[in-house]
């Protein structure tokens, strides 16, 4: 069963009098419990594709079908609702609210979902325990290490139990060792039955996925299964 089906999607920006084709013609499907990496050099359109897949933006042309719903023509509020319920974002720069503690950061999507306070505290706590941060619940982002911040972000992405996790260069701001820990966490999330889309430009990160989609100049260059995907060894998180 496919969660995401996109057909002949294009994104055209008007810059002055010139039309810029950020995405020229992209089609792909992503199934349930798949682990997909999207790769490409800068300017290939992978950020634009990620924004569209994440329902942050709508395509100029083409159809985007998410779980049987046509998202390409939704308005701002409908898109916000889809983002809230169906998509968990993990960003390169973590994007936590700097003045809120870990718990409040994780709670935030549940607030927007309209969940009552006691229930969402419980859910947020559970999500933080799942990423191994039960001792850092009341710390603010500036009191946490980079790896810990990214784990708070992952907890925030998971707390609504979304259909897909969309990770944009999740290890880009981390050192190699911490990056590996995050990849272990992603692998666990994947093995627990989640769907993950990973946007990266590093080959060895992409090889954690089952499938790699390579973009170039707004087209899909390659879309192929990874033979012997890299399965990171579980280690104690700290």
């Amino acid at each position, binding site marked *: 069963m496919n969660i995401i089906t996109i057909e002949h999607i294009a994104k055209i920006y008007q810059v002055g009098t010139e039309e810029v084709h950020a995405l020229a013609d992209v089609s792909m499907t992503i199934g349930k419990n798949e682990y997909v990496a999207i790769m490409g050099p800068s300017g290939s359109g992978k950020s634009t594709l990620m924004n569209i897949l994440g329902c942050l933006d709508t395509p100029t042309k083409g159809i985007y079908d998410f779980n049987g719903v046509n998202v390409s023509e939704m308005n701002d509020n409908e898109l*916000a609702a889809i983002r*809230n319920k169906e998509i968990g974002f993990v960003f390169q720069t973590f994007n936590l609210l700097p003045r809120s503690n870990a718990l409040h950061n994780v709670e935030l999507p549940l607030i927007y979902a309209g969940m009552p306070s006691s229930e969402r505290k419980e859910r947020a706590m559970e999500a933080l325990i799942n990423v191994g941060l039960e001792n850092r619940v009341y710390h603010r982002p500036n009191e946490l290490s980079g790896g810990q911040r990214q784990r708070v972000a992952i907890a*925030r992405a998971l707390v609504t139990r979304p259909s897909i996790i969309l990770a944009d260069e999740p290890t880009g701001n981390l050192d190699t060792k911490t990056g590996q820990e995050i990849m272990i966490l992603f692998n666990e999330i994947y093995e627990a039955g989640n769907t993950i889309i990973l946007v990266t430009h590093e080959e060895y990160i992409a090889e954690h996925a089952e499938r790699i989609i390579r973009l170039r100049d707004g087209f899909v260059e390659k879309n192929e299964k990874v033979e012997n995907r890299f399965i990171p060894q579980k280690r104690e998180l700290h």
Partner: protein
Amino acid sequence: MKNFLFELKESLLIALYAIRANKVRSMLTTLGIIIGVTSVVLMSTAIKGIDNAFQEGVSSLGSDNLYIDKWAWFNNDIPWWEMRNRKNLDMDDYNKYEDLAKLPAAIAPTIWTNKKIKFKERNVEGIMISGTTYNYINTTNLTFESGRFFNDFESRGARNVSVIGYTVAKQLFPLGNGLGQEIKIGDVKFKVVGVLDEQGSWVMGNFNPDNQVFIPIDCVFKYFQGEKFRSITINVRAPNSTSVEAVKEEAIGIMRRVRGLSYSEDNDFSINQQDGLLSTINQTIGVIQIAGLFITGLALFVGAIGIMNIMFVSVKERTREIGVRKAIGAKNRTILTQFIMEAAVICLMGGMIGLGIAVTLSMIVNQYLPTAVQADSVILAVVISLLTGVLSGFAPAYTASKLDPVEALRYE
């Protein structure tokens, strides 16, 4: 509805969170509102106080009272030289009017003069001496601290008796009660038969009974001035406020006859009422009010612009935060509510502080000028500050709500 309340509560919490996180900036922002609300409340309090004092003073005249006088007190339609040329009202006019008038509850003539008053070596200067008859007390609501008003017998007989106002009594007899003592008005001895209660309004000045001494009207003619020298005023009290108009009509009719006016002649007297005074005062206070509120409104306006400014800066600064919030599912309306709420809470806090300052200040001022802090002022402060918050917060909040999440997330 439930959803909306939930959102309101959550955005209130978020707003409080944001305000706490930016204490210094929030405090600076509230400053404008503090000053604005302080001045608005203080001004309205002061105006209310002055108004109250005037109303009290005027109503001490009594709403059922008419004053037949040579002069119109508040009328600017008749030129003053015309009034000046009118024939004085004298005791003859009064006696004829009293004979003919059927409707009034009480009628009394009054005449004023100014004399020095002495008790032993104590002097009080510039006191209004009111000459009148025993019936005067029935045209007023005056009450006594001790003693009584002079009676019919004393009044007709022009006995040397006097009734003194509260302030006069305090000045002449600082330690005790003056009842039964002999005071000197001019060079004539008068016995004090009554001391009035404090009437307590500063507005009426010398016309305040506190500052007056009442003696029989014939004593004034006998000792101080000739009967025709000054015009008298006839105080008329109607039985109740609904009959005031009828009493007035009757008075005009009788007075025209008494004064021998033909059909073509205008009235050569005026009938005065507290209404006239009230409307004059209300006009004056209205002008003060408009001017005052305009000036304080400006202060508030400046405060509101300050808030708007800070909120715009805040939105700019938190662009990324807005992007994150939108990415994880905040709707445009949610962001709008959040920022309006933030401005409203800041303003409300400022309003409360301003109210506190205004109340404290007006307590201090109250020792010199009458002020009146009322529930109105509290409501005024809350409403004004909330309104300012919502209005000045709207434009920045709207900008925030319309941010494109993609752009906002990329913002450094």
